[in-house]
């Protein structure tokens, strides 16, 4: 059987033109997906059943036992952390927020270690963004700043920018210019019309210099700014001003470097400045599948996009205090529920040292680095492969993901709903 127009569950591009060939409830071939998506669809090393750490051994347990363990763990904790959420669907994220409120815990998603700083900047100065389709059809200038789509979002270039056709562009490949700004000469830099190499940590200064040039204050710019010559800065500013429609896509090269959210704020203000001359937009290259959805769901349910603390009985948000890395590093939480992410692979070691000291339950289809710190791991269906649900693309467009094969695994929503029902029962008693 061939399933057409399946939605890829790997990165924030959510490519929706994937063809998946299924035989005997196994994916045997994938067409149109990039290497990352193909590997995800073909992944077979799933955990077979829930497991419990018993001293220095792992024991197989039933779903009922595992779900009861997780519910009891959250109910008996004083300050539980519910973290992850970007690898799952919106319906499961909703249940997660309800659970966090019920136990007065902290719920945070992986955006706190990816585009959380971007959201902080957007809260300060707004987000002049647009959908990917607008960029594909209209943009004659695309800037990738601190992002390397060839490695991280491989089809972004072919579906929307460098290699894409554009409705309002006569010859998109010739007429659309691509600028890459990075500290490394990445593969993406190699296919750019203009590569701007910045010294590490110099993004803020270069953005400020470009803003000054766009404002007509070129005379104030020194000979080089963070390793970039004034001549190149003027050339880039002129390319931007002469474009009919420009689009900036920025990556973690801005959010993880010194300045963090202030870098993004400066980039948004550059776009605002450019919009006095022409049309310009800016958007984040959201990485992990439905991480955008976790921000959307959290925002419409609590008012805040990540790092939400219910310990006061109301939603409280203070990044740096209520975010997962900080809470773990301060050894503050006394239990953790991890869903759709792998903090043991992606958090600093100090956080893992605390994970080793507290009860941890993880919902994940695969054994991963966090498995080592779990008391219980519950395997679930993969959203977009054997579970369906809603995910948000990197430009904020919600897409209903499809199920391409049937398995006996429960979905995240089913497991979390059963957990939540047990917690509600216990509260009512």
């Amino acid at each position, binding site marked *: 059987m061939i399933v057409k127009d399946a939605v890829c569950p790997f990165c924030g591009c959510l490519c929706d033109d994937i063809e998946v060939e299924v035989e005997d409830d196994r994916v045997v071939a994938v067409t149109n997906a990039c290497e990352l998506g193909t590997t995800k669809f073909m992944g077979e*090393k799933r955990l077979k059943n829930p497991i419990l750490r018993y001293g220095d051994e792992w024991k197989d347990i039933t779903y009922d036992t595992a779900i009861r363990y997780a519910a009891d763990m959250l109910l008996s904790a004083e300050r539980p952390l519910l973290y992850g959420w970007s690898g799952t669907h919106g319906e499961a994220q909703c249940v997660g927020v309800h659970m966090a409120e019920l136990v007065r815990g902290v719920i945070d998603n992986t955006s706190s270690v990816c585009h959380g700083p971007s959201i902080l900047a957007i809260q300060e100065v707004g987000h002049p963004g647009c959908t990917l389709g607008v960029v594909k059809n209209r943009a004659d200038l695309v800037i990738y700043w601190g992002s390397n789509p060839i490695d991280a979002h491989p089809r972004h270039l072919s579906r929307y920018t460098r290699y894409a056709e554009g409705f309002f562009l006569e010859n998109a490949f010739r007429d659309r210019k691509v600028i890459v700004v990075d500290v490394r000469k990445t593969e993406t830099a190699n296919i750019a019309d203009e590569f701007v190499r910045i010294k590490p940590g110099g993004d803020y200064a270069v953005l400020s210099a470009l803003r000054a040039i766009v404002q007509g204050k070129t005379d104030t710019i020194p000979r080089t700014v963070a390793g970039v010559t004034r001549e190149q800065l003027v050339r880039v500013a002129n390319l931007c001003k002469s474009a009919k429609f420009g689009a900036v896509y920025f990556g973690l090269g801005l959010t993880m470097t010194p300045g963090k959210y202030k870098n993004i704020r400066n980039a948004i203000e550059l776009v605002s400045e450019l919009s006095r001359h022409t049309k310009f937009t800016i958007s984040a290259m959201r990485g992990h599948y439905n991480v955008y959805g976790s921000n959307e769901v959290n925002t419409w349910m609590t008012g805040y996009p990540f790092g939400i603390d219910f310990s006061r009985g109301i939603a409280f948000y203070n990044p*740096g205090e209520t975010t997962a890395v900080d809470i773990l590093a301060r050894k503050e939480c006394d239990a953790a529920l991890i869903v759709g992410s792998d903090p043991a692979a992606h958090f600093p*070691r100090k956080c893992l040292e605390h994970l080793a000291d507290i009860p941890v339950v993880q919902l994940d289809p695969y054994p991963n680095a966090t498995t080592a*710190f779990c008391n219980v791991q519950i395997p679930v269906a993969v959203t977009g492969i054997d579970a369906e649900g809603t995910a948000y693309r990197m430009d904020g467009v919600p897409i209903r993901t499809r199920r391409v094969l049937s398995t006996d695994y429960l979905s995240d929503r089913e497991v979390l709903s059963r957990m939540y029902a047990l917690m509600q029962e216990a509260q009512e008693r």
Partner: protein
Amino acid sequence: MTFLMITGRTVNQGVTVENKTSAEYAAETSTCFMHEFDMLELGLADGDSVRVTGACGEVVMRASASVEVEAGTVFVPYGPYANHIVAAGTHSTGMPDFKSHEVEIEPTDEEPKTVHELMEDLGGLAYDR
């Protein structure tokens, strides 16, 4: 020698990210991409082991020459090896300095640990069924 360590996504890291117990994931995320002049100065050949020491500890990786990185910087794919030495401070933003970490790098005869060994060093219990 002192370097600035930058971490980030690579295709190979992304391809193996759902199979973190594999040798391929360990090999990719324990690779320290360096400028060839820096490797020359440290007497390193491709695949040699290096001890990378950060503010929070040390970890052994394998050096690999790359034309992408500038002298004085190294690039390590996202994963448990780089994070073994990344500090947890977030400057009140929630975000650690994943792309701006000062590290010391020196040659070593030790082999990089497996992901399981790294997790067990921090109090975890490997699951490898």
